[in-house]
């Protein structure tokens, strides 16, 4: 279980102190998928960098299974928005990178990486360089890299934004299945309401900066729909979409209204 407890974060910028997060609290339980959504630039990605200790909170704490996070935690796996596959390593060498960092012997980590790749439809691409893979396959490889270290909590930072619409749904569906199969916790930061509704069990809506938790919605679609692709057709989906849109408080006046 991953908990954010009374998290505040600010940094000193050129124009003085910038308050990004204010008293943000929520948790992601075992076998639960939580989506964090908020207006652009509200600091939702900052939350993940606090969980992974890339930044330190100004106040509050992040806990994993009740223990305060003090440094990079082996129970956390993160999937970034940009590709993090190292271009000079073959795909299999990328997948085993986390294990290599932990000092796992070469034969064991190679075996694990190869079997993970086969599992995620990347069999036969072991010796290729990442640039030879399609965007969807690169994402799968990055996912295999993240999962190779067997994290119990997965963090996803707008990971599918760069994929085309169809590939995105396929990968979203894979990620949900993988997460459920391992009874993992997953926090996905996104700006896409449909993505949040289709993948998550709960949706945390943040306000504009300084971001606080505005609303938390329990949504049934991810567990009840046969796949991510089927979720938008379920009764109530449009209703939730509208409620979250309103909670985000984004004005769509349009060019005509401004005139």
């Amino acid at each position, binding site marked *: 279980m991953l908990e954010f407890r009374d998290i505040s974060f600010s940094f000193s910028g050129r124009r003085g102190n910038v308050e990004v997060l204010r008293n943000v609290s929520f948790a992601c339980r075992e076998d639960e998928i939580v989506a964090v959504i908020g207006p652009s630039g509200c600091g939702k990605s900052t939350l993940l960098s606090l969980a992974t200790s890339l930044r330190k909170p100004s106040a509050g704490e992040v806990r994993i299974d009740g223990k305060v996070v003090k440094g990079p935690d*082996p129970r956390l*796996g993160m999937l970034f928005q940009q590709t*993090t596959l190292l271009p000079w390593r073959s795909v299999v060498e990328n997948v085993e990178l986390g294990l*290599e960092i932990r000092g796992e012997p070469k034969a064991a980590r190679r075996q694990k990486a190869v079997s993970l790749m086969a599992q995620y439809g990347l069999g036969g691409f072991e010796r290729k*360089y990442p640039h030879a893979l399609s965007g969807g396959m690169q994402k799968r490889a990055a996912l295999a890299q993240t999962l190779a270290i067997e994290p119990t909590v997965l963090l996803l930072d707008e990971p599918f934004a760069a994929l085309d619409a169809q590939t995105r749904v396929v990968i979203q569906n894979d990620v949900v299945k993988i997460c459920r199969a391992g009874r993992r916790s997953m926090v996905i930061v996104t700006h896409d309401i449909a993505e949040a509704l289709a993948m998550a069990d709960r949706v945390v809506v943040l306000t504009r900066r300084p971001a606080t938790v505005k609303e938390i919605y329990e949504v049934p679609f991810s567990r009840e729909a046969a796949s991510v692709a089927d979720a938008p057709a379920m009764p109530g989906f449009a209703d939730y979409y509208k409620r979250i849109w309103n909670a985000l408080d984004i004005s769509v006046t349009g060019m005509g209204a401004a005139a």
Partner: protein
Amino acid sequence: MSPTTLHHVLVNSGRLLVLAVILIGTELGVRYGVMSQLFFSSPSEIFGALQMQWAKGSFLPDLGITVFETMLGLVAGSLAGMAVGLILPQLRVVSNIIEPFLMVLNGIPVIVIAPLFILWLGLGLASKIGISIYIVFFAMFIPVYTASLRLDSTFVNALKVMGASRHQIFWKVVVPSSLPSVYTGLKIGSGLALIGAVIGEFVASRAGLGHMILYASGTLDTPSLYLGIITIAIFAAALSFAIDALGPVLVPYKFSDEK
């Protein structure tokens, strides 16, 4: 014959033709007095100069000395430039302090600083190697340093989240991501290494191809002058060919063009 093989045949026979025109043109031009023997030499005269220099026992030593100075300058200068370029960005304070000094040093034309090396290291090989190292150092240092400063922070963050130490990040990200710049540095440096060696020989020397050229010029021995120029041209071309062949070894992923 396919269009591409036809193209290759045309290009290669065209090149042979250009070479033949130059060789036959100068041979006939000089022999029949159309071109002055003081300013031009025919291929047969240049070959005669080679036989003369060979018989004197000075051609191979002159060539060997210049090749040795160039190679040592290239290897030592590149290694030094690489080491400083990689390590300096890791030490931000030191790097900020000495950066302007390095940039001013780099701005000094090599011909201006060459006499100082002669003064320090004498008339022998050491001064030429020193000059060569000096210019190769900057050819390697600048691209590697710039690349290390602009290191992709996504890669670094991804490794940090996986629990990598500073040491691991240096060897698994900083060093491999500098290799394309090392390759660039080698390409520029290989030409400069030769320039450094020959400039050193021009300023003051007892042997080497630069010495041979300068001596031939002073004694109006035009064929030997051409012999020196042609020998240096062939060596420069061979060196550049060898460096190009290093590309697929240093940065194999840039040369694997499969998509």
